[in-house]
């Protein structure tokens, strides 16, 4: 399991000595025991395929040139080492397969493993690039000792995930990480024992930049024991305050607060059918069950879902994914099921369905709107009842007709008729009101129908024609406005009626061609 000396830790930036880490006055939690899990070949292992048999390496760019970050065992046997330049590595091992480093994939894998580690402890810390810290003292008794915890984690890591790893336990996080990185699976229980336990670690494992490392080498410092022997005051001056603080954190003299990992919540449940279902109708009861489980999950964590995906699995073809956007913050199964049914009406499945999965990742905190506490009792007649069922009706309409076809109306304060109303997408807030400010009512009569674009009218035989000659009976109302935003309108509006009885709202432009237009109907 251990091969301590072959891998030298390579730090581009020293992760443990970052100026952002706060060093507060000496205080350390005497009770905590940190189990560090170090994954030396993480960047290789997250790549697809089996890289233990092939000579492969992960390269990283520094200063415009490529260097080896991590190697597989066959490559190591050939002599490729970490930190080597790519050209040298290729000379030693001509059939070396290289991959660029993928930090985001590494982070994702670490977070997944942290999720798993949460089974063993309530405090898990993700150390970027390649390590996890698990607080083990709190779970020691429950799992029957730290060795048992280590064994369970080892089973998971080597079985399901096929990672190689090193463990170590110590009272401070920094010391655990350091020990794990050297590959010694040490268990240190008391803070006082740290100095002696860490004494034998070569200084190459310490997070230092190249200059300082060379400086140490020149001074004759080889292992940490030599560092302990150096006078403390001079340490900061020689190797930097940051290094001195780091050592204090390692020994537990300074506290080392780190960010605890919180897993992101998502919901995923599956149902398998014992036979292939051809008709989607027969799959909907299972979908109803999944939706009710989703609602329980949402209630438990006080969330509401914005979007979920229903996946239908087929035997030979890829899964059919149906995405459903949920606009209302309802957590009732019936509302969600009605939405789903509306959505499924337009879905055609290419092959018989053998399983269903409901996956909801897009969740947010539940913003309260007063729901009836006793859902079985008939709700008292109040406005909230209408608003929630209006919400679900609008949700169904949106799904079938499209988001843009639903608009709300609001009067605006503008003299120009076409700008005096706002047809916008429906904004309904939690209270069920479409938000718009109150605008005072205009005195002059306005037509109930407005044309989207004014229609030019012809003048013939001295009369305005809209399918038949129009007779005026009211007017003119002069509207001049809009000189400030380039949409200058200067019009005289009249009311007219044509032979067929339509009441027209006609205007004439005051400038330019003095053309007549029809703008609306007094319906």
């Amino acid at each position: 399991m251990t091969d301590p000396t072959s891998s030298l830790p390579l730090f581009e930036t020293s992760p443990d000595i970052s100026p952002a880490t706060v060093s507060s006055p000496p205080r350390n939690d005497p009770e905590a025991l940190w189990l560090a899990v170090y994954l030396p070949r993480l960047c290789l292992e997250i790549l697809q395929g089996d890289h233990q048999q092939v000579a492969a390496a992960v390269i990283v760019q520094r200063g415009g040139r490529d260097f080896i970050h991590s190697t597989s065992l066959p490559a190591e046997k050939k002599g490729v080492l970490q930190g080597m330049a790519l050209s040298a590595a290729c000379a030693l091992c001509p059939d070396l397969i290289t991959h660029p480093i993928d930090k985001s994939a590494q982070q994702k894998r670490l977070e997944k493993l942290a999720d798993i580690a949460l089974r063993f402890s309530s405090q898990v810390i993700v150390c970027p690039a390649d390590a996890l810290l698990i607080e083990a003292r709190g779970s020691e008794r429950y799992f029957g000792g730290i060795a048992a915890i280590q064994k369970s984690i080892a089973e998971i890591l080597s079985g399901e995930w096929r990672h190689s790893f090193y463990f170590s336990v110590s009272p401070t996080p920094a010391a655990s990480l350091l020990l794990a990185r050297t590959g010694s699976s040490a268990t240190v229980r008391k803070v006082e024992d740290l100095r002696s336990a860490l004494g034998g670690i070569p200084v190459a494992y310490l997070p230092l930049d190249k200059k300082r490392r060379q400086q140490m080498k020149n001074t004759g410092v080889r292992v940490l024991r030599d560092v302990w022997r150096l006078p403390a005051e001079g340490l900061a001056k020689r190797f930097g305050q940051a290094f001195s603080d780091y050592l204090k954190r390692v020994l537990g003299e300074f506290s080392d607060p780190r960010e605890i990992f919180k897993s992101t919540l998502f919901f995923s449940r599956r149902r398998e059918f014992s036979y292939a279902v051809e008709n989607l109708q027969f799959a909907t009861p299972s979908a109803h069950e999944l939706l009710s489980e989703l609602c329980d999950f949402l209630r438990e964590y006080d969330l509401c879902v914005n979007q979920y995906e229903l996946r239908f699995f087929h035997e030979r073809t890829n899964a059919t994914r149906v995405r459903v956007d949920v606009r209302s913050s309802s957590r009732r199964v019936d509302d969600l099921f009605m939405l789903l049914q509306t959505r499924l009406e337009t879905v055609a499945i290419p092959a018989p369905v053998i399983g269903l999965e409901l996956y909801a990742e897009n969740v947010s905190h539940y913003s309260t709107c007063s729901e009836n506490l006793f859902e079985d009792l008939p709700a008292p007649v109040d406005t909230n009842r209408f608003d929630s069922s209006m919400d679900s009706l609008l949700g169904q309409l949106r799904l079938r007709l499209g988001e843009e076809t639903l608009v709300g109306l609001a009067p605006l304060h503008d003299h120009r008729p076409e700008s005096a109303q706002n047809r916008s997408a429906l904004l309904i807030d939690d209270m069920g009101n479409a938000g718009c400010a109150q605008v005072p009512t205009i005195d002059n009569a306005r037509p109930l129908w407005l044309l989207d674009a004014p229609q030019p009218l012809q003048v013939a035989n001295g009369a305005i024609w809209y399918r038949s000659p129009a007779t005026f009976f009211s007017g003119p109302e002069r509207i001049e406005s809009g000189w400030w935003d380039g949409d200058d309108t200067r019009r005289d509006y009249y009311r007219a009626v044509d032979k067929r009885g339509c009441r027209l709202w006609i205007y004439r432009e005051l400038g330019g061609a003095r053309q007549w237009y029809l703008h609306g109907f007094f319906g």
Partner: protein
Amino acid sequence: MDRQLRQLLIDNPQLWQGRVARKNTTRCIPTGYAEFDALLPGGGWPQDILIEIVTPDWGIGELQLLAPLMGELTRRQRWLLWIAPPYSPYAPALQQAGVDTNFVVLVKKGISERDALWSIEKALQTDACGLVLAWPGFVSNPLLRRLQLSAAGGETQGVLFRHRETKNSPSALRLGLAPAVGGIDVKVLKARGTFQQRSAKIHFGSY
């Protein structure tokens, strides 16, 4: 008359009792126009039914006829759903007519006939909307019957605007409109509770 028979006649307003027009006990909302109230059996717009309004043209005053009903519904905080109207309803005018535009939802023109009919049916089935206004093209009688049943089931009134009357349409109230000076001529083509086809001229405030 036998007591049971009398009770039967009282309980079922749909039973025609001859020329004597009985007081209709269906729930109604006042139309806002006195002559119109007198015209309709029940004294107002009947609830829970599908209303067909047949008008030769848009813009002769058909919306003005409904304006008091719309205003009353928005005062009761019920929603108005307009499905694919031929032109855009104008918010300042609605405001002048007493309609609270906060409760207006408009489905823009351009959706398919099937989608429009589906929306009408869905809206009629829920309790959410107070009034659904639609301008469908051709609707067959079986579909009209379905919409009428949906309207009867929920608490929503449905109004369909048509250009032509279909024979034997199953809707419970059918009105024919004709333009008139200073108002509009309304003829009751069909109403529950009466066989008479009466008409009256409704006066609007202005032309």
